[in-house]
């Protein structure tokens, strides 16, 4: 795997019924950085990811990898799919083999790789997602969180440069979210660029280097702290403001947080607060 820059320019895309879901959406997936695609349900996050992966052909606009435009012939798509992999939200849509190892081997086998290489890749993908102990288990016996990680392993075994994940943390409990994020960090160390879509603004603020907000059929991209603090943008996107920014801004106004970027989560906020009780008790209303 090596870093590639995936871009979309002026995408118009949708489904048969009604107005397109995206109308002029542009996005750059910065190589090696963590990008969170944010938006309410139905805003077009999944449509955007499907265009980026080549699964959906936009009616206008283009997708490129390192500047080379993605054609929609068989061969172009084949090459693109080796570089960009999309993992859908529902793991059951991706697990169609009997056992975990068999399912993860589906992609590498289709690449026509020799058996030895397929085994290596399957073992590597399972290890990266920390599901190696599940290899011999039937897929239908796994928990939801395990199925989600095995589905990601299936895409990782293709060794993509860019991994697109649609709502990888939706429906997971806190410990499963933590395990998924740890796995994504290992993927990044293996030089894969990771993009996730989510409507969890707190998670996006905590995790992402950059965010792309899907709003009004277009994409607004920028720094997490800037975009997720923009109340007008958030309102139009039907998203909430992350609590850490709301609380952080107020604490800074009170002179309680140091200068620099605002904290992204509870740990960061606590680290920024003063250590000792304030001596000036008069400021506390009773």
């Amino acid at each position, binding site marked *: 795997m090596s870093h590639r820059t995936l871009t979309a320019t002026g995408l118009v895309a949708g*489904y*048969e*019924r009604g107005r397109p879901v995206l109308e002029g959406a542009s996005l750059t997936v910065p190589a090696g950085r963590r990008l969170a695609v944010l938006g309410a349900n139905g805003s077009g996050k999944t449509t955007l990811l*499907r265009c980026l*992966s*080549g*699964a959906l052909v936009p009616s206008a606009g283009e997708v490129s990898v390192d500047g080379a435009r993605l054609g929609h012939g068989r061969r172009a798509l*084949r090459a693109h*799919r080796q570089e960009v*992999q*999309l993992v*859908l939200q*529902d793991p*059951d*849509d*991706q697990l*169609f*083999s009997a056992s975990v190892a068999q399912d993860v081997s*589906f*992609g590498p086998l*289709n*690449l026509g790789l020799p058996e030895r290489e397929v085994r290596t890749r399957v073992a590597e993908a399972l290890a990266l997602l920390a599901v190696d102990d599940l290899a011999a288990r039937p897929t*239908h016996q796994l928990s939801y969180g395990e199925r989600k990680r095995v589905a990601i392993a*299936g*895409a990782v075994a*293709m060794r993509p440069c860019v991994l697109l994940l649609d709502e990888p943390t939706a429906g997971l409990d806190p410990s499963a979210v933590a395990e998924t994020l740890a796995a994504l960090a290992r993927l990044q160390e293996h030089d894969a660029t990771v993009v996730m879509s989510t409507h969890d603004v707190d998670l996006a603020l905590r995790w992402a280097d950059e965010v792309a907000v899907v709003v009004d059929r277009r994409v607004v991209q920028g720094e997490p702290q800037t975009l997720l603090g923009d109340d007008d943008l958030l309102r139009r996107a039907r998203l909430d403001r992350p609590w850490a920014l709301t609380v952080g801004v107020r604490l800074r106004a009170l002179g309680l947080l140091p200068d620099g970027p605002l904290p992204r989560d509870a740990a960061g906020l606590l680290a920024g607060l003063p250590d000792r009780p304030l001596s000036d008790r008069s400021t506390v209303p009773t």
Partner: protein
Amino acid sequence: MTGLAVDDAAWASAWRRRAPGDKVLLCGGLVVTALVLPAWPGSALVAVVAVALALGPARVPARTFARAVRWPLAFVAVGAVTAVVEVGGDGVGWAPDAAAHAGSLVGHAVAGSAAVLLLATTTPMSDLLPALRRARVPAAVVEVASVTYRLLFVLLDSLRAVREAQAARMGYSSLRRSYRSSGALAAAVLTRSWDRARRMQEGLAGRGMDTGLRVLPEVLPSSRPFLAATAAGLTTIVATSAVLA
């Protein structure tokens, strides 16, 4: 994500609130008229009326209507040509009355298809199925059919999603792989349909499912003017056809 275009049209149609019985009467009348009258001018009149009603008062998108008739048209074209080709001792040739015969076949089929499509694009299945109950089809059969209607959309969504996931992992990059992927796809949909039925059982038991899946259809009152217009229209088609023929 995407439904079936004809079904989408039916739910969005301006005739959605009309009584299903009224629409069955109109379209059934047109279908029978198209079948029994001579192709010219009977079928032609039926086709014109069906298309005009669909695109006019029922406000069915022309694109949906046009795309939907492609399937029957393909069959009609192949079938009609085959019917009028003659295989004799001296090889293959056109039957003596080929053009007239083919014209008649195509006329009947196009008119009939347009009339069925008028019903299909204005009346959702969940309105038609209770009408079947009134036609004394057993409740169990109607209930099985309505579960089929609901689940086929759930399964079509699964089908599309699984196929897309397989394609992303090169599952359709050669003929052999395409077969293996299609087999796995069919199996995935089958296991999903069983699982879905099993889980629905519990979901519905909680809502008191004891004997059947009885539901209350919407009240869609029959319209006297609509029925009168139907009778008048069909009579006019028959009369015009008799005069012109």
